[in-house]
């Protein structure tokens, strides 16, 4: 009787695990489809010859700017001069450690909402990237 009970419990646990496995595989396929659409996984990105080349971010990646980032990081990754951001956002030249401060920290210093500051940064970066380059 005890053996039969133990076997039954094992069967139930195995069944539940198989169902959970099926659900996780479904989510995995969904995630893979999303990444495939974004062309994130491609052989070219992992080509050793390309590894020396930097992939700077462009207009299509502006939405990736987050309050935890520093102005220095935004400047380097989007190839936008830190001085341009300083002028466009009205950041005082006496701001300590600029551009090596986080957007969050600067927003708290000047008493503004970090998310609205991020929107202003996105607009500034977008305007700069939209300018014709020589």
């Amino acid at each position: 009787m005890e053996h039969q009970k133990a076997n039954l419990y094992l069967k139930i646990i195995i069944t539940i695990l198989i169902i959970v496995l099926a659900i996780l595989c479904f989510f995995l396929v969904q995630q893979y489809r999303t990444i495939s659409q974004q062309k994130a996984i491609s052989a070219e990105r992992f080509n050793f010859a390309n590894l020396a080349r930097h992939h700077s971010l462009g207009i299509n990646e502006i939405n990736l700017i987050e309050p935890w980032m520093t102005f220095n990081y935004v400047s380097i990754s989007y190839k936008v001069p830190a001085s341009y951001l300083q002028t466009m956002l009205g950041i005082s030249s006496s701001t300590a450690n600029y551009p090596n401060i986080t957007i969050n920290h600067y927003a708290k210093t000047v008493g503004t909402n970090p998310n609205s500051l991020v929107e202003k940064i996105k607009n500034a970066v977008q305007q700069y990237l939209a300018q014709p380059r020589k």
Partner: protein
Amino acid sequence: MSNLFTILLSFVLLYKYVALFIIVFLSGLILPLPSNTLILALGAFASQGYMNVTLIFIVSLASNVLGDCVGYALTRSLKMRNLIENRLKHFSTTARLKEFIEQYAGWTILITRFLGTLGVVVNFLAGLLDIPFQYFLLYDTIGNALTIACFVFVGYGLGVYTEAYSDITKLLGWIILIIILIFMLIKMFLHKKKKD
């Protein structure tokens, strides 16, 4: 993205390799920090030109190995050993884990470098079991070098899509774990049936 992870990212953006060293060292020693995911993100930062891939690899490797060695040394010291042995002897699984590690020390150390917190537990057990330091250091260094190289390379290649990729790796990890559990339970079920 979790709050803790964004704090760690800000810390690294501000202080770069010094921050990386501190975070990875503490993660290797005892703290449950997402150091592998962080290294993945730093690979992405390097792809954008913010950091250097080689320096990320060297600093991560050095700090990870150092953290692991300190964890190993802590349990190797006499006072810690008595304290831990007295606590752990009540758990039967610890005795089985001890047996397993003694038999497959090298592979256990190497493979658990990929498994985050489990690696920290193995560091402590390796010290407790008097695994020779040179042996521990060799497998720890090889395991860490492989893990860090994988994460940096993948992070560099995926760039801004790293966050989406880390969701896939978490899902894959759970799927592999559940497959292993199902396999073990089926084996147990068949063994019981045979006995009956």
